[in-house]
């Protein structure tokens, strides 16, 4: 097998290498160290800076197709919030599965472990259709838009909702986004009008385009995918699923890097052979 022949390698060999790279650390963890970035510390500090008695709105703007990327992040940030004396309101604008993911995180962590009570310290308002108009309406007059929570309980029976009339009452908005425009929606409709702080995390695909907002200070940092979740688990001293997944990330990255290098070497080998053939002709 020459380098040139690798140009036409069956992609299924790459899939196999990828799956083996993912599987090995799951069976035998490697325990590689993870460095915490300034960006993650910035997000952590934004959560820490929420004053006692403050109100945080946590929006899981993702669905089950991005569960593996953002659910560990949701769990670790939610757990951090539960250790503080803050109220957490969760609402979904992205899709119908958002409140289910919040419920999954809530059940995995357990409100009682931190002495919190549903309806007093935390509420899941479910999914509200409408994207930007819904976000704008929520920010302008929450009580006029939201009638019941995810379980059908009227919000008048939930004391936590007494402190949320509009986005001006929010101390921090945490958006875990799978869609590029979602952080922009909160910046446009809540931050522009009410000046609230926005932070959170996102899928890897949209992290790079959001960097300009982090640099300009509009976003108080943003966590990138599983790596961001792993760093957050480390900085908040709550190791979880994200740290475990990073070993597999290491091996997969090596597979992709090696694939790119081999592909370019085979291209070079092929072009050298072609040059040699043309020279003899």
């Amino acid at each position, binding site marked *: 097998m020459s380098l040139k022949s690798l140009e036409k390698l069956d992609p299924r060999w790459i899939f196999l290498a990828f*799956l083996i790279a993912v599987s090995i650390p799951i069976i035998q963890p490697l325990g590689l160290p993870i460095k915490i970035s300034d960006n993650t510390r910035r997000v952590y500090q934004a959560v820490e800076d929420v004053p006692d008695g403050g109100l945080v709105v946590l929006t899981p703007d993702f669905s089950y197709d991005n569960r593996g990327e953002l659910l560990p992040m949701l769990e670790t940030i939610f757990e951090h919030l539960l250790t503080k004396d803050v109220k957490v309101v969760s609402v979904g604008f992205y899709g119908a599965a958002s409140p289910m993911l919040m419920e999954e995180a809530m059940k995995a962590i357990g409100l009682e472990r931190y002495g919190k009570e549903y309806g007093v310290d935390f509420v899941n308002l479910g999914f509200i259709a409408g994207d930007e108009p819904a976000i704008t309406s929520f920010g302008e007059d929450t009580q006029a838009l939201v009638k019941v929570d995810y379980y059908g309980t009227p919000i008048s029976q939930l004391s936590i909702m007494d402190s949320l009339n509009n986005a001006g009452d929010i101390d921090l908005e945490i958006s875990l986004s799978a869609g590029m425009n979602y952080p922009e929606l909160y910046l446009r409709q809540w931050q522009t009008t009410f000046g609230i702080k926005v932070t959170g995390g996102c899928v890897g695909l949209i992290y790079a385009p959001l960097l300009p907002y982090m640099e300009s200070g*509009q976003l108080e940092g943003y966590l990138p995918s599983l790596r961001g979740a792993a760093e957050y688990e480390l900085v908040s001293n709550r190791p979880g699923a994200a740290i475990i997944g990073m070993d597999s990330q290491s091996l*997969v990255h090596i597979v992709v890097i090696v694939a790119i290098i081999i592909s370019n070497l085979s291209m070079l080998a092929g072009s050298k052979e072609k040059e040699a053939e043309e020279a003899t002709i």
Partner: protein
Amino acid sequence: MNLSETLVLLIAGALVLMVLSFLYRQSRWFTFAEHVVVGGLAGQGTAIGLRNVYYQGIVPLTTGQWWYILAIIGGLLLFAKYARGQSWLVRLPTALLVGCGIGLNMRAGIETQITAQLIDTLRPLTSINNILIIIGVCSGMLYFFFSAEEKGAMKSIGKIGRYFLMVAFGSSFAYAVLGRTSLVISRVTDVLSYPTYYLVPIAIAIIIYDIYTSRKTT
């Protein structure tokens, strides 16, 4: 773990392996699993949509806010696409949604996406990084200026902009790999846990049998 939970997990595991079989080749297994998931998502979406219509549309109507009948009519007009000759009525609620979206985007988008970004770009020229940022942003924006012909200085500056964009897209791709790999990790972790790991040797055996029979026929 009781029997019903184990059974549900085995069904889920089987469907997951059917989807992963696409990596080997497209087959009826994958198409079956695909139709299960699409049907499930569509059914759930319909039910959640109806729930939203009830709480956000019908409940306000019953509490005296009569103008919500306009929202109900508007929503029902969306179904006019199935009415022969009257499908143009769909454009009315669509126009409302589009107008609202455009207005909300434009009113605050200027400050968030343009002004704030330009202000941050105009940094003091005291460091190489700041100079690079100004050059990158200006040349990148000029690259997208398609109304003027690309020649002379425009062409050179546009080329520099393209270089900055290529670096940006390359790093973006690297983060996309990071992100999507997390999903594979999550799935493989699931497949390698109880009780799904019992299905893995069966799946491998089916693939090996398929490779053997396809080689025999060729």
